[in-house]
């Protein structure tokens, strides 16, 4: 097995002699086939001739390719390319692994800080590092694969599809952050409730029933939510999530439109254009009706 410093000598392997043998075998086999079988229908002859010619051309191409590959220079060039492939795959896997490690590191850091995040009823400077890291990892490490420029006739369709995937991922990450912020009051309210219960137990005044504890918790929770909702961090996260959702929906609609164009149905864009024209026409008709003293009441039967 070749080590990292000394790559596997691909051109010295048995691949190229095998390639040559295989090409010769298929060419000889093709030559043994009769040019026109008597059993075939006359109507099929033209097609069959074309097929045989095509097969012969392909095999000749294959043969030339195998001969060329037998040349040491060509084989070496191909081998280099083949050797580079694992490197590309390794690079891709590497960035994935690095991303996973980064997330894990952030999670570990967060775990170490549990309970120290923020004070009760205070939502300034929220510790949303994990989510920011997640976004960062996605944007720096993974997003690039969706941004590889597509080529060819279908490039615009691929681009829009990739855009949809990209926007979806960004929305998911932002939504996770938003939901985590939304959960914070729960976390804090339980801590405050615990402290209050402890204090009351020390005073010998424990709640009489579950309802009393629940009412106490609910009041604490409501207070936390009110404070959270007024904070800039929450408002920013809310608008960020809404923006990312809108980005995703726009990208999804555009990708969907490509798909719908293949079907005999109208797209949203077509309908919007029609609705706008319809709206303007209706306005003009109503204005004319008003001038002519025609009632806009379309009711014919009293329900």
């Amino acid at each position, binding site marked *: 097995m070749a080590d990292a410093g000394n790559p596997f000598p691909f051109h010295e392997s048995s691949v190229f002699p095998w390639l040559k043998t295989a090409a010769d075998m298929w060419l000889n086999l093709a030559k043994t086939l009769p040019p026109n079988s008597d059993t075939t229908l006359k109507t099929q002859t033209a097609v069959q001739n074309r097929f045989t010619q095509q097969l012969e051309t392909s095999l000749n191409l294959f043969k030339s390719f195998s001969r060329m590959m037998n040349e040491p220079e060509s084989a070496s060039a191909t081998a280099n390319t083949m050797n580079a492939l694992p490197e590309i795959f390794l690079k891709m896997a590497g960035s994935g692994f690095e991303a996973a490690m980064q997330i894990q590191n952030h999670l570990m850091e967060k775990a170490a800080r549990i309970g120290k995040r923020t004070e009760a009823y205070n939502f300034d400077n929220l510790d949303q590092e994990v989510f920011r890291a997640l976004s960062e990892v996605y944007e720096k490490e993974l997003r690039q694969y969706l941004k590889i420029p597509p080529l060819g006739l279908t490039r615009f369709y691929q681009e829009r599809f990739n855009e949809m995937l990209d926007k979806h991922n960004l929305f998911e990450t932002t939504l996770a952050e938003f939901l985590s912020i939304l959960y914070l009051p729960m976390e804090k309210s339980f801590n405050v409730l615990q402290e209050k219960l402890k204090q009351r137990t*020390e005073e010998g005044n424990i709640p009489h029933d579950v309802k009393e504890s629940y009412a106490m918790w609910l009041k604490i929770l409501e207070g936390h*939510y009110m404070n959270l909702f*007024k904070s800039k961090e929450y408002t920013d996260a809310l*608008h960020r999530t809404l*923006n990312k959702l809108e980005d995703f*929906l*726009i990208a999804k609609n555009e990708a969907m439109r490509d798909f719908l164009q293949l079907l005999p149905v109208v797209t949203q864009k077509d309908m919007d254009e029609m609705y706008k024209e319809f709206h303007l026409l209706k306005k003009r008709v109503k204005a004319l009706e008003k001038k002519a003293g025609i009632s806009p009441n379309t*009711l014919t039967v*009293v329900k």
Partner: protein
Amino acid sequence: MTETKIPLDLILERMAEDAEKARQRASRASDVLLGELHYELGSTPYEIVYEEDRVKVKHYFRNENADRTLKAPLLVVYALINRETMLDLQPDRSVVKTFLQEGIDLYMVDWGYPTSKDRFLTIDDHVNGYMDNIVDFIRRKHGVPKINLMGICMGGSFSVMYASLHPEKIKNLITTVTPSNFDTDKGLLHVWMKDVDTDRMVRTFGNIPGDLMNFGFLLLNPARLMIDKYVGFMENMDNKEFVENFVRMERWIFDSPDVPGETFRQFVDDCYKKNLLIQSKMFLGGKRVDLKKLTMPLLNFFGEYDHLVPPEACNQLTGAVGSKDAQDVCLETGHIGIYVSSKFQRQFAPRIAQWLKERDQEDAAEPPSAKRKPDVKREAPLKKPSVRKTGARQKASSAAKIIRPKTAGKDKQSLIQKIAEAI
């Protein structure tokens, strides 16, 4: 360090008792939930008298034997968010029924459910289009030059715009939980709306989905609206009447039509962001909405604990309009509590009826051009508002009259009441 001892035996004993009670309740609840339940909304009979596109007008049958019937009919305009059925939520809590019993000839706009084809409808289309056509229809039907107009929430803002643009058609104006000053940070909606990118929203959604807005409203008080409400339901689900009323409320809350995209864009941009209405700088159909032209008597209700439209968003209107007969009434409740809370059934609708009757003495067939000199009456002057520079003229003001419920105290509040006040 001393360790606090918790009497575990006592706690476990109580938990066992609770578990037994819960088991019994669940058993009774299955009978209720599997049995026949009546939770229809808007059960008061009406007829549809007008229809234009998706918009309909309901006409209710008043009590012709009432002590005194009103000459001028009343048109109620609800918001584009949620439905007007809230005014007729359940038989014993119905603003509609109270109006009819008081002898008011009642019409109510049903905005219907906007579809994609309605996304280009603007505020102008609603106010100078639908509303104006409906007002003309009622005026013609009754042979009167003016009618009474009552607006609720966003429908109240539309009514303020309409009354300013067409003062010759409105006899009295009643606004309830109506935002007119949007430059306040007291309500979370006002804070959140400031940074909303309306262009992107309209581009993405077309019409703004009712479910999205409902989710936003739930987020205003998740502890009450997403947790406590359902805990309360679990505690009372063996009570048939409670379950029926709860489901009615639930049906109303989540019956939320989409809002036409262009209307949403204009309302957020012109009102929430630029605060044009209270400054008389808003334009509809090329005409300026000048609040000074709103000269008819005005009665303005709002809720002290309203999270959606806080008092600061409502209490500048009476100071900004041209009318000299303008009153503020602040009720000690939330956004919906004004209409559905049993505590305010006597302080709200009967009061409106009384106020209208006091102003219905004159001949309803007064010619549109005749100018009536309004009484200078400010029964409940303004609470000192958190005033920003709005450009609106401020009349002499002091605190608005806060009306507290005459019924039982806070501990005896029903769950429905709590929900109503939490919204």
